[in-house]
C-alpha cells in the first residue's frame, strides 16, 4: 500500500532532481521530497526553526524507528505500509488548489453536512473551500485568545510553543509517550509537524472549552499531529478534538500522539469525535488512524478523563490511557466506537494504577454493522504499591446484522491484594421486537436504529460537552445509514 498525497505527481517533478544530489536543510522549498531519511528530518526541523535538542530527539526517534517492528497484536489487517512512498512535509495547501466554492464539492458530502446541521461557513472550511481572510472564526479565535491570555492560559500550535515556551516543551514532550513507545508513536516523534500545545497555570480554571477548531492554523490538520497538554496544580481544562463532519484527507496514514499531564489536584477532560473518511464500502481509500494517546496523573488527587466517539477511518488503532501515579488520582475512559461496512477498529484503554487509592472507570460501547470487525482491548494493571486501588469496567457490544463481529479482550493484572477490580461485558443485537415496536410508532427503520443505538451509548454521550453531544447523537445515526434493511 502506498501512503498517498494529492500533489504527489507535481511534487515529484519539482523535487526529485534535488533529492538526487543530496538534499540539505537549507533549501527554500515548501515540500520535502518523498520518503523518509535523516535529511528529511533535518529539513522539517529547519523549516520549523527548531532548537538543536529537538532535532536530536527527532533523529534519535528516527534511528529507533528503523529498528522497530510494527505492532502486530491488534485484530486488524491491512497490506504492509510503504513508508518511503509518502511525503512527510508540505507547507499548508495553497487555497488555489482547493475547490473554489461549495458548488465544486461532492454533493454527497454536502448532504451529510446538512444532516448534521453545520453552518455554511463551517462547511466551506471542512470541505477545503477557499475562504476569505475575514472569516468569522478568525475573529472569534482572536477574541478567545485575548481572554485566555488574561488568565495566563497558553494555547497555540506546538511549533510556536517550541519557540516561545521551550522550557515547558522540553520538560514534558515525550515524558508520557516516549519516542520508543511503539512504532507509530516513534514515527510521529521523528516527523511531527503540527498539533496543539496547552498550558493551564496553577489554580486556573480554563474559562472556555478549548477546541482544535478554534486554534489558529487548524485548517490543515496534520497527518502526524502532536498534542501536549499540561494542567498545573489545581487547574482545570476541557479540550475538544475533531469534529463530527466527515473529514477528508489525502494522507492515508495518520499517526498522532497526544500527551496529557495533570499535576496535583488538576483535572483534564479530553473529548474526541473522530470521523475521518472511512473509505468506500469496501474500505478503499479510507484513513488508517494509528493514534497514541496517554495521560499521566502525576499529582495527588489529579484526574484525567477521556471521552471518545469514533465513527470514521478505515482502521482505528487507539488506546487512550491513564497512568495513575499520584495518590487518589482518577482515570476515566468513555468510548463509543461505531464500525460499519468494511471498517476495522481495535480500541480500548490502559489504566495503570501506581499510586494509593487510585480509581479508574472504563465504559466502552462498541457498535458493529455491515462486515465490520471491532475489538475492545483494555488493560487494568494494579502495581504492588497501589493500595486500595479500584477499577470498574463495563464493555457492551451491539451487533447489527449477522456479518459483523465484536470482540472483547480485557487484560487484568493485579499485584495488590487490597485492590478491587470489576469487569462486566455484554453482547447484544438490536432485536426485531425493538425495531418493530419503533416502526409501529411511526419511526422509519433508520431513525429507529439511530434512536436505539443512541440509547445504547447514552452513558458515554452524556459525558461530552453539551454542543458536542447533540452533534454526536446525529452522527451516530448517520454513521449507521444503510446498515439495516
Amino acid at each position, binding site marked *: 500500500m502506498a501512503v498517498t498525497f494529492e500533489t504527489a505527481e507535481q511534487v515529484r517533478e519539482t523535487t526529485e532532481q534535488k533529492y538526487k544530489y543530496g538534499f540539505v536543510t537549507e533549501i527554500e522549498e515548501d515540500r520535502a521530497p518523498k520518503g523518509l531519511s535523516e535529511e528529511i528530518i533535518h529539513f522539517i526541523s529547519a523549516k520549523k526553526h527548531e532548537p538543536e535538542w529537538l532535532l536530536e530527539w527527532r533523529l534519535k526517534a528516527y534511528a529507533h524507528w528503523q529498528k522497530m517492528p510494527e505492532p502486530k497484536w491488534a485484530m486488524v489487517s491491512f497490506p504492509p505500509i510503504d513508508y518511503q512512498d509518502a511525503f512527510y512535509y508540505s507547507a499548508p495547501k495553497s487555497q488555489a488548489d482547493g475547490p473554489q466554492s461549495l458548488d465544486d464539492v461532492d454533493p454527497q458530502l454536502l448532504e451529510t453536512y446538512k444532516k448534521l446541521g453545520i453552518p455554511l461557513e463551517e462547511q466551506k472550511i471542512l470541505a477545503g473551500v477557499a475562504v476569505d481572510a475575514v472569516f468569522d472564526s478568525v475573529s472569534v479565535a482572536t477574541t478567545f485568545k485575548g481572554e485566555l491570555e488574561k488568565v495566563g492560559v497558553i494555547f497555540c500550535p506546538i511549533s510556536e510553543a517550541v519557540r516561545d515556551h521551550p522550557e515547558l516543551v522540553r520538560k514534558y514532550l515525550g515524558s508520557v509517550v516516549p519516542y520508543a513507545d511503539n512504532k507509530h508513536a516513534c514515527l510521529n516523534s521523528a516527523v511531527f509537524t503540527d498539533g496543539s500545545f496547552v498550558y493551564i497555570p496553577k489554580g486556573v480554571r480554563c474559562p472556555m472549552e478549548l477546541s482544535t477548531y478554534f486554534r489558529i492554523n487548524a485548517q490543515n490538520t496534520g497527518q502526524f499531529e502532536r498534542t501536549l497538554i499540561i494542567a498545573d496544580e489545581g487547574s482545570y481544562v476541557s479540550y475538544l478534538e475533531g469534529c463530527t463532519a466527515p473529514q477528508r484527507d489525502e494522507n492515508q496514514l495518520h499517526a498522532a500522539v497526544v500527551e496529557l499531564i495533570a499535576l496535583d489536584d488538576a483535572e483534564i477532560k479530553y473529548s474526541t469525535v473522530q470521523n475521518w473518511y472511512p473509505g468506500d464500502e469496501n474500505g478503499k481509500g479510507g484513513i488508517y488512524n494509528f493514534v497514541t494517546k496517554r495521560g499521566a496523573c502525576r499529582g495527588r488527587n489529579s484526574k484525567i478523563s477521556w471521552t471518545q466517539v469514533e465513527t470514521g477511518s478505515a482502521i482505528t488503532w487507539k488506546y487512550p490511557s491513564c497512568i495513575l501515579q499520584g495518590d487518589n488520582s482518577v482515570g476515566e475512559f468513555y468510548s463509543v466506537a461505531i464500525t460499519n461496512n468494511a471498517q476495522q477498529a481495535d480500541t480500548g484503554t490502559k489504566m495503570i494504577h501506581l499510586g494509593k487509592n487510585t480509581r479508574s472507570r472504563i465504559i466502552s460501547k462498541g457498535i458493529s454493522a455491515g462486515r465490520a470487525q471491532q475489538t475492545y482491548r483494555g488493560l487494568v494493571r494494579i502495581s504492588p504499591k497501589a493500595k486500595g486501588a479500584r477499577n470498574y469496567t463495563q464493555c457492551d457490544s451491539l451487533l447489527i446484522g449477522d456479518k459483523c463481529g465484536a470482540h472483547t479482550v480485557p487484560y487484568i493484572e493485579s499485584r495488590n491484594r487490597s485492590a478491587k477490580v470489576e469487569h462486566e461485558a455484554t453482547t447484544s443485537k438490536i432485536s426485531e421486537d425493538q425495531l418493530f415496536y419503533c416502526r409501529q410508532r*411511526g419511526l*422509519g427503520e433508520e431513525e429507529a436504529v439511530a434512536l436505539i443505538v*443512541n440509547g445504547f451509548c447514552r452513558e458515554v454521550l452524556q459525558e461530552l460537552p453539551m454542543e458536542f453531544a447533540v452533534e454526536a447523537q446525529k452522527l451516530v445515526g448517520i454513521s449507521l445509514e444503510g446498515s439495516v434493511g
Partner: protein
Amino acid sequence: MLEIKNLHATVDGKEILKGLDLHIRAGEVHAIMGPNGSGKSTLSYVLAGREGYEVTEGSVTYKGKNLLDLDPEERAGEGIFLAFQYPVEIPGVASTTFLKHALNAVLRYRGQEELDAMEFVKMLRAKTAALGIADDMLKRPVNVGYSGGEKKRNEMLQMAVLEPTLAVLDETDSGLDIDALKVVADGVNSLRAPDRSMLVITHYQRLLDYIVPDHVHVLAGGRIVRSGGKELALELEKTGYAEFAGAAA
C-alpha cells in the same frame, strides 16, 4: 374505515388466518375474543405489518387504501396504533425522547408541522395529567424496569399522544390486576371519539366490563365464527369457547 376480506395469513409457512372477514366503521369499538391459538395476535400483527406475517390471500383496505402495500411506519402514519401485549424495552432512550421522535415522525408523514420542544412538553403535560401518569416515568428509559401496569399505562399514553384513527389493543388486559385494568380501561374510554375506531382483542370477558364494545366477534380456527352485540361477551363468559373448538378443523 377498515375492511378485511377473506384474509389468509401464514407464519413460518403455517396458515393461521383462514379467511377472516371484518368490517369496522368510524367510531365503533369492536371486541375480538377467542381461545388461545385462534389467531388473535396474528391478526393484530398482520394489521400492523410485522415482518414474518405473510398475507397469502384476501385484502385489507383502510380509509380506501390498500393497507398491505404499506410499511409498518406508514401504517402508523395512516393512523393505525397497536397497543402491545408485551411492550418492548428500549434501554437508554427516555420515554419522553421516544414519544417526541414518534410523534414528529407521524406528523411528518401526515404533512403536518412538527412540534418544537416547548410545544411538545406542553402537550405531553396535558396528556399525562389526563391519564394520571407521573413525570418520573417519562424520564426513565422506555419500558425498562416498568411494572406491568406502568407498561400498559405507557402504551395508553403513546396512543393518546399519537392520536390514531384505529387503535388495536392486543390482549392489553394480560398480566394486569383489577386496579391496573381499570386505569387502562379509563384511558381507552377517554380516547373514544366519533372518528376513532378500536379493535379490542382479549381472551377474557372482564376487560369488556370496562370497555363496552359495540360489536363482539369470536375468532376461532383463523376465522370469525360468530358476531353479535356486547351481550355475546357475557354469553361466552358462561359457556366458554368449547362450542367453537370444532371450527378449527
